[in-house]
């Protein structure tokens, strides 16, 4: 007897599919460049907001959204390798994939903040570094984009592999939130409660961070903190002449 179990909460699903749209647009605008560079920059800020939200939600979301539920510890990976892992959310391999994708996206966003296209676009934090460092970070941003595309391809291939060879549909649950499991599978069913308060806090914090980064509020604070307009050499007060 199959029963429907709620696994993925709606903020998580919204985040996932939002990311699909935004990252696709970012890749296209990034590769085309030129007048689209400004849009690429804006999309990057949206990615920052989404990723920060996911990182926060990983601590305050429902059960299977939390990192604690799927973090690929050596014990879990070993169990999975031996075929004895059981669970409703991401399996340990899936968990690794989540962390890799989030990590790579974060690296892309941070490097992109300092990047420039040598024509008319520069990231909101490019003002903090000299052109040479900005150029190097831009180059890394370009190289990492291929790694990101590779990881995304792997992710899609894995979903396909599960459908074709394991006869497990991973796409539908990520859309509806529900998985069908046999009632006597023995897998502990727990989804926790979606806390609207935490959802609000996470959304506001993520959006706030993204907007302040985009509008140079953080660079402004950094600049005042580091006082980068100060002279490079300490000016010594001349000693009073001894008459």
């Amino acid at each position, binding site marked *: 007897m199959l029963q429907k179990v709620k696994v993925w909460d709606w903020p998580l699903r919204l985040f996932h599919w939002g990311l699909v749209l935004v990252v696709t647009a970012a890749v296209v605008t990034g590769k085309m*460049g*030129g*007048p689209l560079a*400004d849009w690429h920059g804006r999309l990057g800020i949206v990615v920052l907001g989404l990723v920060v939200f996911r990182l926060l939600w990983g601590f305050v979301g429902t059960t299977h959204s939390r990192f604690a539920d799927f973090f690929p510890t050596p014990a879990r990976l070993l169990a999975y390798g031996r075929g004895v892992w059981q669970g409703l959310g991401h399996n340990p391999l899936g968990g690794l994939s989540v962390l890799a994708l989030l990590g790579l996206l974060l690296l892309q966003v941070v490097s992109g903040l300092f990047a420039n*296209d*040598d*024509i*008319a676009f520069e990231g909101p934090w490019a003002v903090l570094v000299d052109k*040479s460092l900005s*150029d*190097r970070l*831009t*180059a890394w941003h*370009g190289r990492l984009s291929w790694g990101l595309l590779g990881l995304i391809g792997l992710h899609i291939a894995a979903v396909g592999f599960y459908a074709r060879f394991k006869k497990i549909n991973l796409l539908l649950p990520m859309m509806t939130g529900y998985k069908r499991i046999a009632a006597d599978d023995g897998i502990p069913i727990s989804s926790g409660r979606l806390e609207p308060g935490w959802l609000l806090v996470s959304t506001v914090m993520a959006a706030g961070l993204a907007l302040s980064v985009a509008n140079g509020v953080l660079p402004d604070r950094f600049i005042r903190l580091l006082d980068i307009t100060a002279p490079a050499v300490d000016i010594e007060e001349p000693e009073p002449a001894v008459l």
Partner: protein
Amino acid sequence: MTRKWGLVVVTSLISLAVQAGPIEDQIRYRQSAYSFIGWNFGKIKNQVVDHPETYNKDQVVAAANALAATANSGLGALFGPGTDKGTGWKPTRLKAEFFQQPEDVRTAGVAFITEATALARAAESGNPEIIKAQFNKTSETCKGCHDKFRAKE
């Protein structure tokens, strides 16, 4: 006697360091030219694309004129043979392809000069929409050359 020879050696070494060859000079001049172009391009972008409420006709005209003048100053002379290797202010990013595809180089160069000159004319119109359209056209000519002939960092 040794002191005199020491002085000769030291001044020779200094003059060797200061005296860059013709290749280094070309690279330095063109790196300066494109930096200067980028500065003026950024000014136009700021007033016409990013913050149109700050548009000042005279300032944009001045920036566009400086840009067009630099574009028309014969920058081709700074891309002599062998200048794909060497250091001006920093190591050059010119690719060897530049010397293997002279026709494409000519197309890219002429495109830049044409659009930069048109940008200066558009700036005279005082109409930010017209300037913005021409700004976009000009930035595509920058990209046209960069994509083909400049190495990534």
